């Protein structure tokens, strides 16, 4: 059970983070100018092109990913991993 929760938390957190930064970053580039998350302005300061993806969506996804990680940390505070679970996790990841 604990392994499943750990796996789900890590997977969800990583997915949200990478979606906000990398996946939507690629979408933004493919969408054309501006290639960043800020609008393009002309010399007069007028906005002539908006980013393809609202930065609020991207920042929201990243913060949600970090929040998942934080919630998992709180879960671990409430239900500490047993020695056996720690050893299993170490064996699994140590190769």
């Amino acid at each position, binding site marked *: 059970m604990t392994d499943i929760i750990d796996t789900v938390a890590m997977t969800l957190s990583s997915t949200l983070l990478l979606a*906000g*930064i990398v996946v939507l*970053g690629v979408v933004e580039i493919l969408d054309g100018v501006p290639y*960043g*998350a*800020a609008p393009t302005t002309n010399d007069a300061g007028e906005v002539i092109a908006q980013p393809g993806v609202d*930065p*609020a*969506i*991207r*920042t*929201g996804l*990243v*913060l949600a990913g*970090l929040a998942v*990680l*934080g919630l998992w*940390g709180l879960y*671990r*505070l*409430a239900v*500490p991993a047993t020695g056996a679970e720690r050893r299993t996790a170490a*064996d*699994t*990841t*140590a*190769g």
Partner: protein
Amino acid sequence: MAYDASNPLAGEFELGRVSSVAPVWIALLRAVVGWWFFHAGVTKLIESGLQFSSGPAYLRGMGDTVLGPLAVWMGTAIPGVIEAVVPLAETLIGLALMLGVLVRLAAFGGAVFMAFFWVGNAAFGHGVVNGDLMGLLLFVTLMVLGAGRYYGLDGVVERLALVENHPRLGYLLG
């Protein structure tokens, strides 16, 4: 040792293979990040005391960001608390990181600060991956690594009887 043979990317994560300089580097990183926040906090305390009025104003200006509702509420409903907490918390977070004590708790506080800075400074002229996000990720990294155990007081604190008798406290330490 066992590993997931079905996934060629999911093996050989033995952190013991990293260079012996890693603990020193983690401690240095922790100290530098600590100084960053300590400097930001203590200079506010010197200049404004516990009346850092820019704090609530900054939060009230975050209305159209993803943290807008929370930030605007904090800036409007509890401005006095924000004015005092911002310089005080920055200073204490910095001190805790430099000393390496209660590092996970302190780094969590730093990450919350940086989340507001990252989202609030939302011009993103050079993309969403900017210095503020790097700062936020530095704090998360210090939490994940338990950085207080490397040449920090958390290594001593976690051997106290209080912590050994209450293992959950270890999650707040480095």
